[in-house]
């Protein structure tokens, strides 16, 4: 039997003789997750009223990126035991035995501290506090507390992924208002159908690792029902930026069409007996969020030119 209390390197017997490569440290930052976080953070910053010097704006986005990467590194350190059990994550630097756990933890903590301090010194204390809260929420609330305990893990934990546009907005204004909270709600309600679509076709992996994702605990039928409900809840969130005056008709029309499509995918998942529709919905969910945030920028640019 595998002793999960032992460090992974000890369990696997593959201590990193050659040491971790630079690519391994880069992989700790979860670059794909980071790209979406950076993008939504930038959109929050771009839409906020007021002016921020381009260099400082770039620093704010960099701090959000590094903070997100730090969260990913600490998450990988904490989850190295269950990552080793899932095929999707088994090749990460820690479960693969290419890096010592302490290196990953130290790297993550250093980056987290640096990003928050730099944000505080260069931008403002409110943005720095929000960034620190986001990192702490992801590490302590999602990773250490919820992930292994409840099927609502990604629902509540999704708040961490939804905060970057609020951090970006706060970097410019120094406070939080209704508009950035609308962006927060959009990502918050998008997260469950996005992750449950993935969990539907990775159920075996999660079950093997003992992670109580909704399809593992409640079964695919209940998960598909919840996904459909969340896509319906997304409608008002997707349209909120239009009604709050944050975006114009281009965004409003596109948000309507994209939300209709997303709900269509959820209906297809509901009716599908296999996992083909779930795979399609997972891929579309990423495009959905990316397009909505891109349209917010395009709409604002078009309004600025008009």
């Amino acid at each position, binding site marked *: 039997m595998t002793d999960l209390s032992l460090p992974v390197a000890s369990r696997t017997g593959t201590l990193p003789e050659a040491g971790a*490569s630079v690519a391994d440290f880069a992989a700790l930052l979860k670059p794909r997750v980071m790209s979406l976080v950076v993008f939504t953070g930038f959109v929050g910053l771009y839409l906020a009223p007021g002016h921020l010097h381009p*260099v*400082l704006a770039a*620093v704010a986005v960099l701090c959000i990126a590094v903070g997100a990467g730090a969260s990913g590194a600490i998450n990988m350190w904490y989850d190295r035991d269950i990552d080793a059990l899932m095929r999707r994550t088994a090749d990460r630097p820690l479960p693969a035995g290419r890096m010592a756990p302490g290196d990953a933890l130290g790297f993550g903590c250093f980056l987290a501290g640096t990003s928050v301090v730099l944000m505080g010194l260069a931008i403002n204390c409110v943005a720095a506090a929000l960034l620190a809260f986001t990192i702490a929420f992801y590490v302590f609330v999602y990773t250490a507390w919820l992930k292994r305990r409840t099927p609502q893990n990604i629902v509540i934990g999704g708040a961490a992924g939804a905060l970057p546009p609020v951090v970006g907005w706060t970097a410019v204004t120094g406070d939080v208002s209704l508009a950035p909270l609308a962006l927060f709600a959009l990502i918050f309600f998008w997260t469950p159908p996005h992750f449950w679509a993935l969990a539907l076709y990775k159920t075996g992996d999660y079950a093997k690792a003992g992670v109580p994702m909704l399809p593992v605990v409640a079964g695919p039928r209940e998960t598909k029902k919840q996904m459909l409900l969340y896509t319906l809840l997304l409608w008002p969130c997707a349209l909120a930026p239009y009604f709050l005056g944050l975006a114009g008709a281009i965004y409003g029309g596109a948000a309507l069409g994209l939300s209709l499509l997303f709900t269509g995918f959820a209906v297809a998942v509901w009716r599908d007996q296999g996992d083909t529709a779930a795979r399609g919905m997972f891929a579309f969910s990423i495009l959905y969020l990316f397009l909505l945030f891109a349209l917010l920028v395009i709409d604002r640019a078009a309004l600025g030119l008009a």
Partner: protein
Amino acid sequence: MSVAAVSGGGTVDERRRRQRARNWAIFALLMGFVALIYLITLVKLGGF
């Protein structure tokens, strides 16, 4: 030369190569960080 020696040499070479790459990465990051702080200071002082 024995197979073990070749294998051991390979590991040592690989360790040195990785260490060099990590050192260069740290150097580049530190230089970037210094440049960034310099730029932030200029902006904050109204330099440009």
